[in-house]
């Protein structure tokens, strides 16, 4: 049933939102002074890689991304089928926000981002793709250097920064929509959810958007 | 006159309905399944009857011209529904409600019918509450009431300003329940164009499928008409554009008597007409009169802004003329009083055709919040249509054609003069006499449909079980079908020079001028001549484009108007015959020196039931009204 798919969208979406918090928190380590940042970030990465619980959660994470995307595709196709003929004139902007109507497009942009992002880092670390990775003084993989080197490429930094905008837009509507999909209907709480969604999406957008810029300008591998 | 036997049961007034029920015939459930009943119309009366009869086991076929049964015009009743629950402890009782209704109708209805209406009102509220109608409630959870025109107790139940909608949606949901149970077959976008009578009994109908234009025959053991009012005969009215008199007029031409056809209620609180292209007059709920005060400027042609007119220059004419009822005087009296002031040159608004309904005092007394809570949606609606904020400036209101008290003559069982043909709700003449009290129409429609008809129809069907109606391809059906087809092609072939709306405007103009709030002999006679001329012109000069085997709204309008024109003639004949003033029927020749209606019980204490002889001739039958239990008094609201 369609409504079940929406529940899956909401649950996977919210799960991914939690992941983003963890991810961004870790990224803040990158803002420490160079030496500290390097040590902290590499240690953190090392811990993640070697913790079986995290490995298990990461599988959930991959599944969540896949489910969220596949469901989105199916739902979007179904929804398009439900309105086979578009209006000649449609002032949808007068009754709804742009991002609420374009969650699929925004999601697709984020998916592209995720693929590029995973190719940049995950593929190198997890699949051993590309040249051999540097090792830091503690003998851990020097992910920090990988990050900084990658982001010294202005195109990649720009790509990361720009795509934080659709991320924020997607999150802003997604969080609220998920709450309603899962049945939160009290107007008072929905007001709080709206506030939280605004705050959350701003933090995520700014965080993920500005950190690459900081690294581009200030960090050294 | 044997044909007009009202079949009023024996016994004391309070016992008549139970006596009737005790003695009427029943049908065993296995046999009910074999009996088919047609219900035309899906409003409160029709949907209630169709759902209830289906629950009882009959096969029901229900027809409506709209795209869904939920659109029927019961939906538009705003104010409420009366019931003598006496929840307010203000002295209400079945007797008082009975008396108010009888008196409100100016003693031109049957005691037994009206008493039954009052008696069944309380269980009806129980029934609607059980169906999920979100009636207004007190903080403690009990049902709330408000007062309404023509009575001095608070007995009106309501659901914001959308009572009719909520009751209809409840009836519609019950109808849907029986559609799902496959006990009711619903035919939407179907219009009844002919009644079929076999051996003097109703045996089916001919309909037009409004999408394909297909003419279809439907047979049944009994036919129930629940087709509502016909005030669109005035063209400008508070009714839906599609409301029409065709079903009852077709039945009339097949032998059903029309009773009191000229009794039309003119509602006092509609929005005034603003131009000729206007298609309808929007009603503002009468409940507004609970808190609003009606006035006009004391000086003729006072064109000042209402806020600049001082108290001493305002004439609160209802409070002046009817001090004990004031702004809550019954509809006919309020409308006529407004017309009197407007005609005397005190009208307000751009076309000087309106009076003020002012909430200033109520807002000062109760506060803006209370008024918003009570009437918010009505004020919003007023603003949408007129662009005026009625919280700041008084509303402009004006009388408009509204409810048809007249309709097919029915007996105590709601059966017309054609055996097997029933008329329920607004399309019959039963409980309201010459004038209907506010919030009694939803009541009558519901009670007819839910409570009375499903009980009384057994009495007829118990004998019908032995003789099935002819098959829908029997000669009488094919003949009726071809008559309908001929009428349609005749209409389409005229290819004249004027639109249907053009003729409808002319008809409306004549009727509003001569057969509405006040009538006189000369005017009515002239109106009859004019309408007959209009009829000739219509049938020789109307132009309808498109063809018959498609969705053709011009054709629909044309067929309805053709029947309205004929009905209008009978309305004028009826008004002309009744040489008295009673209720909504005000003949200028019959009034007191103060301008109040002068009823003549010695001569006119009867229901006029008209038999169709031919297009130009109607025969009057009189059903004498015998008042056994109350003594008709002068209907005074002073």
């Amino acid at each position, binding site marked *: 049933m369609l409504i079940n798919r929406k529940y899956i969208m909401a649950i996977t979406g919210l799960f991914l939102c939690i992941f983003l918090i963890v991810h961004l928190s870790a990224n803040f380590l990158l803002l420490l002074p160079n030496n500290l940042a390097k040590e902290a970030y590499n240690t953190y990465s090392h811990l993640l890689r070697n913790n079986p619980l995290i490995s298990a959660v990461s599988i959930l994470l991959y599944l969540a991304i896949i489910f969220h995307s596949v469901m989105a595709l199916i739902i979007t196709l179904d929804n398009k089928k439900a309105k086979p003929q578009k209006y000649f004139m449609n002032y949808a902007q007068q009754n709804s926000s742009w991002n609420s109507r374009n969650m699929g497009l925004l999601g697709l942009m984020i998916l592209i981002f995720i693929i590029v992002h995973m190719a940049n880092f995950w593929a190198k670390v997890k699949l051993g793709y590309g040249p051999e990775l540097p090792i830091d003084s503690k003998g851990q993989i020097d992910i920090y250097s990988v990050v900084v080197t990658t982001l010294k490429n202005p195109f990649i930094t720009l790509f990361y920064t720009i795509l934080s905008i659709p991320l924020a837009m997607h999150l802003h509507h997604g969080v609220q929509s998920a709450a309603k999909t899962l049945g939160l209907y009290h107007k008072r709480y929905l007001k709080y959810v709206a506030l939280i969604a605004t705050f959350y999406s701003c933090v995520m957008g700014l965080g993920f958007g500005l950190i690459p810029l900081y690294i581009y300008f200030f960090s050294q591998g | 006159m044997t044909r007009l036997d009202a079949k009023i049961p024996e016994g004391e007034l309070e016992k008549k309905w139970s006596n009737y029920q005790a003695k009427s015939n029943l049908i065993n459930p296995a046999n009910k399944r074999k009996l088919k009943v047609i219900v035309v119309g899906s409003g409160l009366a029709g949907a209630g009857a169709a759902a209830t009869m289906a629950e009882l086991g009959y096969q029901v076929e229900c027809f409506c011209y709209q795209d869904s049964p939920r659109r029927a015009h019961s939906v538009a009743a705003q104010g409420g529904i009366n019931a003598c629950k006496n929840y307010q402890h203000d002295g209400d009782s079945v007797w008082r409600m009975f008396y108010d209704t009888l008196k409100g109708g100016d003693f031109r209805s049957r005691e037994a019918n009206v008493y039954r209406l009052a008696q069944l009102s309380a269980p009806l509220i129980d029934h609607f509450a*059980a169906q999920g109608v979100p009636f207004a409630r007190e903080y403690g959870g009990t049902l709330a009431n408000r007062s309404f025109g023509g009575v001095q107790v608070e007995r009106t139940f309501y659901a914001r300003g959308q009572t009719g909608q909520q009751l209809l949606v409840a009836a519609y949901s*019950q109808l849907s329940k029986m559609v799902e149970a496959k006990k009711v077959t619903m035919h939407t976008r179907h219009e009844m164009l002919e009644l079929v009578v076999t051996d003097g009994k109703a045996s089916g109908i001919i309909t037009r499928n409004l999408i394909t234009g297909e003419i279809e025959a439907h047979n049944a053991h009994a036919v129930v008409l629940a087709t509502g009012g016909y005030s669109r005969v005035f063209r400008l009215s508070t009714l839906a554009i599609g409301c029409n008199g065709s079903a009852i007029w077709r039945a009339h031409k097949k032998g059903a008597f029309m009773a009191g056809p000229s009794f039309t209620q003119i509602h006092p609180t509609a929005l005034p007409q603003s131009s000729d292209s206007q298609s309808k007059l929007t009603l503002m709920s009468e409940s507004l009169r609970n808190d609003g005060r009606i006035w006009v400027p004391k000086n003729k042609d006072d064109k000042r802004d209402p806020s600049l007119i001082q108290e001493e220059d305002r004439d609160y004419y209802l409070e002046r003329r009817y001090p004990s009822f004031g702004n809550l005087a019954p509809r006919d009296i309020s409308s006529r009083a407004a017309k009197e002031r407007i005609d005397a040159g005190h009208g307000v608004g751009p076309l000087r055709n309106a009076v003020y309904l002012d909430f200033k005092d109520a807002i000062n007394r109760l506060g803006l919040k209370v008024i918003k809570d009570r009437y918010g949606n009505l004020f919003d609606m007023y603003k949408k249509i007129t662009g005026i904020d009625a919280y700041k400036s008084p509303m402009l209101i004006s009388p408009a054609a509204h409810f048809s008290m007249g309709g097919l003559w029915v007996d105590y069982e709601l059966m017309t003069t054609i055996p097997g043909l029933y008329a329920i709700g607004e399309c019959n003449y039963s409980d309201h006499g010459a004038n209907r009290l506010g919030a009694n129409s939803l009541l009558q429609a519901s009670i007819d449909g839910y409570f009375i008809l499903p009980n009384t129809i057994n009495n007829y069907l118990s004998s019908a079980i032995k003789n099935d109606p002819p098959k829908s391809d029997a000669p009488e059906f094919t003949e009726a079908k071809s008559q309908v087809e001929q009428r349609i092609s005749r209409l389409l072939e005229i290819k004249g020079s004027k639109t249907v709306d053009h003729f409808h405007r002319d008809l409306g103009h004549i009727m509003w001028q001569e057969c509405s709030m006040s009538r006189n002999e000369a005017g009515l006679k002239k109106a009859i001549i004019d309408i007959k001329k209009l009829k000739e012109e219509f049938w020789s000069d109307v132009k309808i484009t498109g063809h018959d085997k498609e969705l053709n709204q011009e054709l629909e309008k044309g067929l309805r108007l053709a029947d309205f024109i004929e009905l209008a003639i009978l309305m004028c004949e009826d008004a002309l015959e009744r040489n008295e003033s009673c209720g909504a029927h005000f003949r200028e020749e019959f009034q007191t020196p103060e301008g109040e209606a002068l009823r003549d019980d010695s001569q006119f204490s009867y229901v006029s039931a008209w038999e169709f002889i031919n297009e130009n001739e109607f025969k009057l039958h009189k059903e004498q009204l015998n008042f056994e239990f109350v003594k008709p008094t002068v209907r005074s609201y002073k």
Partner: protein
Amino acid sequence: MRVNFKIWRQESHQEEGSFKDYSVDNITSDMSLLEALDYLNETLVLKDEKVVAFDYDCREGICGQCGIFVNGRAHGPHDNTTTCQVHMRSFEDGQTIVLEPWRARAFPIVKDLIVDRSALDRIIQKNGYITVKTGGAGEANSILVAKKDADKAMDAAACIGCGACIATCKNSSASLFTAAKINHLDHLPQGKLETNERVMAMVSQMELENFGSCSFTGACEIECPQSISITEIARMNNLFLKAKLTKE
């Protein structure tokens, strides 16, 4: 004033449709939009042309029969209004007014601006009622209903079934319509007893009728003539989830 209508004309569901332009003089600003169409139709009849078919009935915003996509908005340029309550003063002299039928797979076009909304009736037929027989009701005041519950029930019950929510929804979702009925009955103790079966049955039927799903864009609550809130949909989701989780 003079206006130019650009109107979708389509003979039937089977045939292709297209826009046709009509320019109409002598329109007055106090006319309603539908009266302007009446007027256009009268001129068409006199020109021997077929009239524009459009739905209407009460013309006071309560029956729900009218519904046109007017200049890119369901029911025209104002929020929370029916088409019949749009007046020509909302348009400018010389303006082009584009009229399209409701577009949704679940609403096949019948003719010109008329669509078939019987899918909505079929949703109601699936438990969109309280199972009670005529004659069996107890005293109304024996079941108390808190004023706030009655008010909430009324907020949802106000739905007129016009289909604007579906027309405006990019997914043609009937969630607002369906939720309104489910919540109306669930707020009342009389209706609550059957909520679980009702919500399951109505939601299934809604999906069978080829309506899309809800993306919470909020367009529906802006176009709804009765201002029914989108939170009704959230509440329906809540009830559905509960019904599903507690299903025996």
